[in-house]
Structure formats: C-alpha cells, structure tokens
C-alpha cells in the first residue's frame, strides 16, 4: 500500500515536471496556440470545397436573347463572370487550364427552344479540376436549365415538374463548409500536436541524458512514460476544448449539436492513446530531427486516411480495414462526427470509447516495451 502510494506520488511529481517543461518551451506553446486558433480559423474559412469563383468561358454561336440571358446568369460567388471566346480558342484554353468549363451554345439555339425542337448545349469540363468539376457542372446545368425553363415557360423548373422534390440537408442546412472544416481542423490538430508533443518530450530527455538520470532514482519506466502521456495529453485536451468553444463555436459561429462533455470524455481517452503512439514513434529515433522525419509521414497518413478528408467509404476496402485495425484516428473521426455534427448521445457512441481504450492500452504497452529496450539499452 505504501509502495503504491509512493508510486503515485512520484507519478504526480513527474507529471508536474512535464507540465513545467511544456511551459518552458515557448516554441511548442506558440505552435499549440497557433494551431488551435489562427490555423483553425484560416484553414476552415479559406480552404473549402465550396463552389466558388469558378472560371467559365462561353462559345456563343447563337448570340440571341436567350444565350445572353444564360451568360449573364453565371454570377459570383459560384462563378466568375463568363468570358466569351471563339470556338477555335476552346481547346487551347482548356489545355492551359484557364477555365474549368467551356459552354458551347450552338447556332439557332433560341429558335429551336421556342419551336420545341430538340437542341443540345455542350459543356466541356476540365476534369483535372476534380474537386469542382463535378459539383460545378451540376450547378452550371441547374442555372442553364432554370434560365431556359423561365424563358420558355415563364417559370422555373419546379413549376413544371410532376413531383415536388424537397431536398434538405440534415445537421448543416446550408452545407456551410466552415462547419465541417473547423471541426476537422480541431481534430487534426489534436492528433498532430499530441503526437509531436509527447514524442518530443521523450526525445528531449534522451538528447539531454535526463532519462538515465531519472532511472537511477526510485522511478520506473512506466511512471516516466505515463507522466509524459498524461501531461501532454492534458495540455492538448484543454487547448482543444477551448478551441472548440471559443474559436469554433463563438468566433466562427458553428453550432455544436451534441454534448461537449461527451466529446471531452472521448477526446481525453483518444488523446492518451495518441500520446502513447507519439512515445512509440519517438523510441525509434534518437534525435529530434530523426523524429521529425518519422513523424511527418505518420501524421500525414493519420490525417488523410482517417475519413476526415475523404469519407472512409471512398477508400479501397483493404486500406480502410488497415487504417481501422492499426490506428485509432478513423474511429475518432467517426466519434467526433457522430457527437459534434449529428448530436449523437452516449448510447450511440459508447463503443468508440471502448475502442479508444483498447488502442490506448496496446500503444501504451508497446511504447513501454520499446522504451525499455531502445532507450535503456542504447
């Protein structure tokens, strides 16, 4: 009993020491602060997949009232003002990537429309602009079809359809990409910074030789590793929750649908598992530079292949399974989306919490094993 208390007392001392070390590293603190404030703000507001400012060229071979009406309907913010070009220029313009869309309005188009004769508009799309080509072409077609319908029947498309299709978007009615981007950014930062912070904490001690110093004292490897995981995890969890409430909710006015407490619980467990992973990566490197080289690919893989960027179902099956069985991050992304986007409650997400605990345990055990063999022996 006394031994157990002493063990805990030393863990607490080391935990305090870790916190002091973090406090004394201004660069890391600035990085954490930047990542959870400015970066969340700027990345979520600028890098969006929302249709914006698309460049359209029109080859107007009709030059009629209708064709001009269509051209003038292409307006910001989705489109740039359409530019008229000649048929000969079209290929060149697409090759050079000057426009994403080239709309061709054939001669006598207006006349054919008025006479209800079949007529065909052509849209050439630069499909290398993969993000905007698909949704952009749908938007473009909608605008054109609406204009034609109004011109011909005096009303929009809806008035003529046999069925009234009402489409709604749940959880994000206007499909505002900031809502998504901001939360994903917070999640990515949690993963990235926890891994860097905990790994760097171990490397710092290895580089300075203080690990040895600790181990000569009545302190075990388990306490050293655990103290790092807890202290660095705590810092990140606090920063993440502040970022969520202050930057995402108050500043960017993103509504938070679910329970922040539930998110806090899940994030805490997840963060501890990633901190263990950081220690694990750090045991494979002897210097901060090596750690950097190892961590960069790991972080990019975690951030891109976990469903935060691209839905998991769009990835090849083998890759999806590999990610889900080897790393926690895909589960964390699902957990966050369920809780914060869709307002899922404990009954919907409890299994994620178990997964985090499982992964955390495995990473911790592995990092402890590696710590003993790599750090102590060499």
């Amino acid at each position, binding site marked *: 009993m006394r031994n157990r208390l*002493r063990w805990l007392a*030393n863990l607490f*001392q080391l935990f305090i*020491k870790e916190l*002091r*070390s973090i406090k*004394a590293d201004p660069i890391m603190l600035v990085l954490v602060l930047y990542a959870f404030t400015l970066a969340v703000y700027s990345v979520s507001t600028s*890098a969006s997949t929302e249709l*914006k400012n*698309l460049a359209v060229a029109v080859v107007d071979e009709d030059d009629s009232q209708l064709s001009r009406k269509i051209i003038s309907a292409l307006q910001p913010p989705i489109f*740039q003002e359409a530019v008229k070009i000649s048929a000969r220029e079209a290929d060149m313009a697409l090759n*050079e990537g000057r426009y994403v869309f080239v709309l061709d309005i054939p001669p006598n188009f207006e006349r054919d429309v008025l006479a*209800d004769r079949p*007529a065909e*508009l052509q849209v050439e799309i*630069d*499909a*290398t*602009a*993969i*993000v905007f080509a698909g*949704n952009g072409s749908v938007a473009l077609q909608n605008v*054109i079809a609406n204009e034609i*319908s109004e011109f*011909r029947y005096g009303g929009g498309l809806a008035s003529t*359809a046999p*069925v009234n*299709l009402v489409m*709604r*978007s*749940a*959880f*994000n009615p206007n*499909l*505002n*990409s900031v809502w*998504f981007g901001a939360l994903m950014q917070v999640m990515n930062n949690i993963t990235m910074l926890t891994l860097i912070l905990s790994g760097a904490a171990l490397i710092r001690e290895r580089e300075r*030789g*203080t690990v*040895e*110093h600790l*181990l*000569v004292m009545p*302190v075990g490897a388990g306490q050293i590793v655990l103290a790092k995981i807890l202290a660095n995890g705590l810092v990140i969890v606090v920063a993440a929750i502040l970022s969520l409430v202050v930057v995402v909710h108050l500043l960017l006015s993103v509504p938070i649908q679910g329970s922040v407490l539930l998110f806090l619980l899940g994030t805490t467990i997840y963060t501890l598992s990633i901190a263990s992973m950081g220690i694990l990566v750090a045991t494979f*490197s002897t210097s*901060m*530079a*090596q750690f*950097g*080289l190892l961590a*960069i690919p790991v972080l*990019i893989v975690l951030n*891109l292949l976990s469903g935060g*960027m*691209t839905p998991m*179902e*769009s990835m090849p099956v083998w890759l999806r399974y590999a990610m889900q069985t080897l790393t926690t991050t895909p589960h964390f992304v699902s957990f966050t*989306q369920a809780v914060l986007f*869709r307002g899922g409650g404990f009954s919907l997400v409890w299994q994620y919490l178990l997964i985090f605990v499982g992964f955390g345990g495995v990473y911790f055990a592995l990092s402890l094993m590696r710590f003993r063999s790599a750090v102590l*022996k060499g």
Partner: protein
Amino acid sequence: MMEAVARLEGVTHRYGKRLAVDALNLAIPAGCMAGLIGPDGVGKSTVLALLAGVRKLQAGSVQVLGGNMAEKRFRDEASPRIAYMPQGLGRNLYPTLTVFENLDFFARLFGQGASERQARIHDLLTATGLDPFPDRPAGKLSGGMKQKLSLCCALIHDPDFLILDEPTTGVDPLSRQQFWDLIDTIRGRRPQMSVIVATAYMEEAERFDWLAAMDDGKLIAVGSPDEVRGRAGKASLEEAFIALLPEEKRRGYQSVVVPPRVVAPDEIPAIEAEGLTCRFGNFTAVDNVSFCISKGEIFGFLGSNGCGKSTTMKMLTGLITPTEGWTKLFGQSLVGNEMEIKQNVGYMSQSFSLYTELTVRQNLDLHAHLFHIPAGEIDARIQEMLTSYDLTEVADALPDSLPLGMRQRLQLAVAVIHRPSILILDEPTSGVDPVARDSFWRTLIGLARDDGVTIFISTHFMNEAARCDRISLMHAGKVFAVGTPEELAERRGKPTLEDAFVSYLKEASGIPEDAPASTAAEKAAVETALSPAHAAPMRQRHFDPGRLWAYARRETMELLRDRIRLWFALFGPVILMITFGYGISFDVENLTFAAFDQDKTQQSRQLLEKFSASRYFSERPDIGSSAELQNRLKSGEVNIAIEIPSGYGRDLKAGRQPEVSVTVDGSMPFRAETAKGYVTGLATGYASELMRQSGQSVPAISIETRFRYNQAFKSVNAMVPSVIMLMLVLIPAIMSAIGIVREKETGSIANFHSTPISKAEFLLGKQLPYIGVSLVSAAVLFLLAVFLFQLSLKGSFSLFALGTLLYLIATTGFGQLVSTFTRSQVAAVVATAIISIVPAVNFSGLIIPVSSLTGMGRAFGLAFPPAWYQPISVGAFTKGLGWGDLWPNMLALGGFCILFFVLSLLLLRKQDA
C-alpha cells in the same frame, strides 16, 4: 624575440552579449610548439578559429603566415597551408565513413591524384599505427584513435601551420603520449612547421616550447613553461595557473588535502561486483569486471573514452542489466530490490543532465520529492543544500545561465539531496576550471570522510586520481589493475601515476615497455609521408570539379549509410503517394440510403427503384418511423433518407405535384453537395420519364457534359499527377536542407570553413546526391502512378522527364537556401515543410484550380516552383500535352534552379560569425 607565425592585435570577439576574447594582443612564435592553456570557455577556441580563418574577425587584426586573415583573397591562398583540427573527439570526422574514406575525402579536397592519395594515406596510417583498421567506421574508433585520425586528416596536405584545439581531451594517457610523440616526430621532419595547441590539461603544457595562459578572454601569462612557473613561484603549471588568476577568482581557494581514511573492519562492502560483462551484439563493452569497495572509500575509475567506464557505471546503477555477472550494493543484489537500492544511490552523469527548463530550486525540489524526503523536511533540506553548495543566490535561475562549475555543484547537490550512502560520479569535472574542480573535490572528500559516503568516480585528470583511496585502470572493456595510487606507481616502478598508467596500457596493448611511443617503422613512414617528393605543388583553382566530386561522393556514402534518412527519402514519397492517392478522393460513391415509404404504391416503388438502380447509391433496410429516420441519420448508418408521404401515387396520377422529401446527411458538405447533385439528376430523369408516360411534352433541350482529359471522372487521374508535384517538393527540399544543417550540428561544417573548397563547389557537391536520390524516388512515383493507380502517360515523356529533373534541381536548391538560415535540423525540417507545403497545396492547383485563384494567391503560387511544375505533371499525364504547350513552364523551372543557387551562394558564409 622569435619570428612570429601569427600575430593578433586588439582582437575582440563577442557571441551576442558575451565577451569571449577581450582586446587580445598575442604573437605566436614560428617553428615551435606553442600552447594556449586555460579551462573551458576562456576564449581559447575562438582565438584558434580566428587564426584558422574559420571564424569571421569582428575587431582587431589577425596576421597569419605573413598575410592578413581579414582578406578573402589571402585566406583562399593560405588555406592549403593551414590545417585546423576543431575541438571535440573526431568532430571534423564523418562517423559512418571508414578511416580510409575519411582520409580519402580530405585528400581529394586538396586536389591530390589517385596514386598520391593512396601513398599518403598509407604512410599516414602506418605512421599513426592506424594501419590495421582502414575499414573501421570512424564512429566506432576509440577516442585516442579518433584523434589520431583527425590529425592524419589535418596533415594530409603538409600544412605549414597546424592548429589543434584540445586534441587530447578525453583520451587515455597512452594515446595522449603517442599523439604528442607523433607530433614531435613530424616536427622533427618538418622543422618549418609551426604548431599551436589549446589544452585544458596543465600537465601536457609542460612539454610545449612556449605557452600563453588565458582567463576570461584575456592573457594572464606568456612565455616558456619555466618562465611561467618561475613568475608564479610554483612547482607545477596547474598551481602556477591558479596563482596567476586575478585576486577575486582565487579568493577562498585552498589546496585539496585528503585526510587519511579510518577503515572499519568486517563491514559489508558498499559496492561489490563480480564478473560484470556487457555485450552489445558482437561487441563486448565490458569484459568480466569485478571489484569490491568498502564503505566511505573514494574509488577512482580511470580509462579512455569508450573503454567501458560509463557502461560499467550504468550496470552499477541498474541502468543496464549486465549480460553476465552481478552487483551487490550493501550486500543486496540489484535485481529485485531496485527501488530500495536506488533510494540509497546518488548519480551524476558525464554531461549536464538536469532539467534546464526548471530552476535550481525546482530541480532540487523535484529530486527531493522523487526520493520521498518527508514533506515537512523538504524545504529545510533544499535550503541546506542551497547554502552548503553555495547556490542560494542563483536559486531561482535556470541552470543554463550558470557557469559550468556552478552547474556541477548543482548536479552534486541534486545527487546527494536524499543523503545517499553511495555516490556514482561519471567524469563530473571534465571541462571545469582548476579552482572550481578543487572546490568540488573538497566537497567530495568531506562527504566521504565526514559522512561516510562511498564514492565511485571516473576521471581523466591524474591529479584527481591521485586523491582517491584506490583506483582501477580500465582499457578496452577490461580492468587490468586496482590499488592505491602509490601502490600502482610502485608496482610499475614509475615516479608518477600517469607513467604507471601508460606502462599498464602498453602492457595491455602489447607494446614493449621500453619501446618508444612510435616505432622505427612508423618514424620511417612519417619521413616518407612528409618527404618533399610527395608535396606536389598546390594547384589553386577557382572552381575545381574534383573538390565538388569529393563532397558529392562523401555525401552519397553518408546518405546511403543513414537508415532513417534513406528510408525517408525513398519510402516517404511512396507511402505519402499512396496515402494521398487514396486519401484525397473526391469520388463520392456507395452513398447509403433508406426509404420511409408511407405510400407503398406502385408509383412510390417506381421512384425508389431509381435509387436502387443507381451505381452511386446502396440501399439499406426501410425506415419505419420519423424517429427512426432521425436516429439512423444521426448514427451515420444512412447518408440519405427518402420520405414518401401517403397518397403519393394518388396525387401523382391526379397531377397534384406530390411532395417527396429527401434528407441528406450534411455533416460532410462536399459529400452532401455531390449527393444532392446525384439526387437532382436522378429526379430530373424520373420526371421526364413520368411526363413521357403521361404523354406531356418534354423539354427537348439536353445539356451534354463532356469530362475532358478524365472521362471516367476519377479522382486519382487528377490527384496523382498533382501529388507527384507535392512529393517532389516536400521531400527533396527537406532532405537537402538537412544535408547542410546536419553538418552545422555535428561540427563537420568546420571542414567547409577550413579547407579550400569554394561555396559553389560545396553547394553543388552537396546537392548532387539529393538530386540523384530524388530522381530514384521520382521514378518510383512514376511507376506507382502507372501500375498502382493505372494512369497512362498521355503526353510527352521527354517533357515529363526533363521537367521533373529541372523541378528536382529547383526544389533541392530551395532546401539548400532554407539551410543557409536555419541552424538546427528540427528548424530546417519544420521551415522547409511549411514553406514548401503552403504554396504547393494551396496555390498550385492541387485542390483549388489555378483559374479560380485571384491576385495575391496566384502571385504567391507563381513565386515557387510547384505552380510551374503542376501543369507539366498534369499536362503530361492527364491532358496529353507536349513541348509546344509547356515550354514556358520549363523555362521558369530552369530560372528557379539558377535563382535558388545564386541566392544560396550569396547567403552562405564561408566563415562562422
């Protein structure tokens, strides 16, 4: 007055605010062995670096070999005549290169031909006794051998002025003696050569012809050793040095007296070790070491760097588990009683290993707590330590701001705060000045004699060893003698401990006792090595491809032997390419939908069939209630919920425009947007079909969309070429930046400063290997694109290949540019990654098409190579373009290659600041 080889006048040098050299005037006599003595941090290294021309002169003048070192032209001319060996064991060597490869590199830098190199290297290796190990990596040599190799590297070009900065620190006495004998022999052969040596060992300085003693950037004495001793009226140089220090430094100094030890009989030994052996793989670091140390004894542990001392100490403290053998502390085995025993041990390691981010007091506090000093006593104990170790004034300062001597006191205070009965100290005094060292020893002796603490200490200083009760001598993993200092000297019949140690070492290394340090054969080799026939006239060329090649060759060898860097260079792009290729997909497929069909008529089923038939959607079981609809959307199980009201079929037939509501999960906006597009398209088709069925006129207008370049509209076709763009900037730039900054960190950058290599040769030589490695990874990326992602190259291959080459030259050049203003590898990695990722990801068409960028963003993109390479990669792969379309991009890339090179050339400094 003798003729001077070098003369300093009014030289002052600062590092930031710290004054390192203070208005120094000094003339160093030519053709002799000159010494610069004083402890660490008094400005010795700065003076030598200024003499060698590797540091930029700040104020005053430096004349070397009759010329002004402030002039670049003279420095270029003089650099082949000067040899500089920087401080630190093998610091200018390349640890992964073998002995031969290291020498070969230096020989190439001095423009020697193949046969000349062979001959010289052979001679030098024979002369230094390194000839049995030409293929051993420099990093695996012992300290003494490293220093000999460093010396060989310095001597490879027959310098006229040899500058050695603490060449023997951390080297065992035999190697030290061999080293000096070697220098003597060389000087005998080449009397015109001048040598200046800095050293912290006062005993060594006795053999110099002339010496200058420094303290705090100033001279405190100049002259022959006899003159210096005579002036202070002391018998040894060490005492003389202390006597010559300014008054305030000597205050409180007392010489160290060791009171005799009272031995208590029949006590349990404090430390007992039996047959300790430690192997790392094939290498036996410690071989069958045993000793028995009684309570209160000061036990000295002597041996060279890398002989197994530290490993033995780590085994005693339980840091390393011995491969064989056992240790008992106070009769208790280390195994199983670890925590209890640790409570009784204090440890202080070689380098300063306390937390620099914690204050003095916090460091003491942490240790007091970790050793479970009762909470009520902690404050008093900390106060006691602060007072008795003279740290009260700096209690709240950070350790980094303290002088070395004070930091050592802090380390000792921390090591004894819990009143341990055993202290294990690993070279606690290296680099500390003599006054501080002696006061440190007085504390140690007090602990041993007054408090009965057993002290196990390793040291390089013989005068410290002489103060121990007993010492053990260790070499190459074996302890070959244990006894009191007097006994050991007596046993070998030598006057001093040092001589005895050397004699033991000779025996251990199989050198006959009476043999001179260097054999006749070695002397002969020195003779040939330095004979004029070898000394080919030095060709000084402005740009020498040979020197460039020397650097390129060496960098390649180092890179190929560094597993982590090579892994990053070759596999990094592959892993990331796969990640990006699959990870950034904008293909939206497999959207799950479920219907809440309250109508269940033929008409409603007809509508739902449209969904099931689409390849974008996959059907899930029907929904039974509104609550279920909400829940299943929430859980993410269903992406799209379709609600068909009752009476749908009836209303449809009646032409009453029944309402169908479709709810899309909006949590991922892009997916939702695309899903809505699919639903709209599907609904339009459905509507036309209905209208046709009911005989209504259907608008005859169709909008044909043609997806150019990528008919299947697959993400990979567009993403993969852009990802190649991203990979080939990120990784080559980071690699080449590290390539240079690494040398700054390890110290081998000194070779760039001190040898005749020019900036252009250096930059290009260091760039070539990275271009080569990057070309390999570019080829792998190309193959991945073709075979894994099934892309075909539609455009010109020659365009793609040449464009990629230019791009790689530009991006590696960019890394070099970053390396000119970063100092640590971490900073280089972070800075390069950020500076290259931002324009490559945001402003080069990776996600947002360049045509949608406006003003600043576009301009920012165009200021970096990725925006110019992306059209080449995408053009060649997806768009099928050729030279006619893309020649301006090629020109721009070529421009970047030149621009980055020129900028690096301007920013790179041949001299240190």
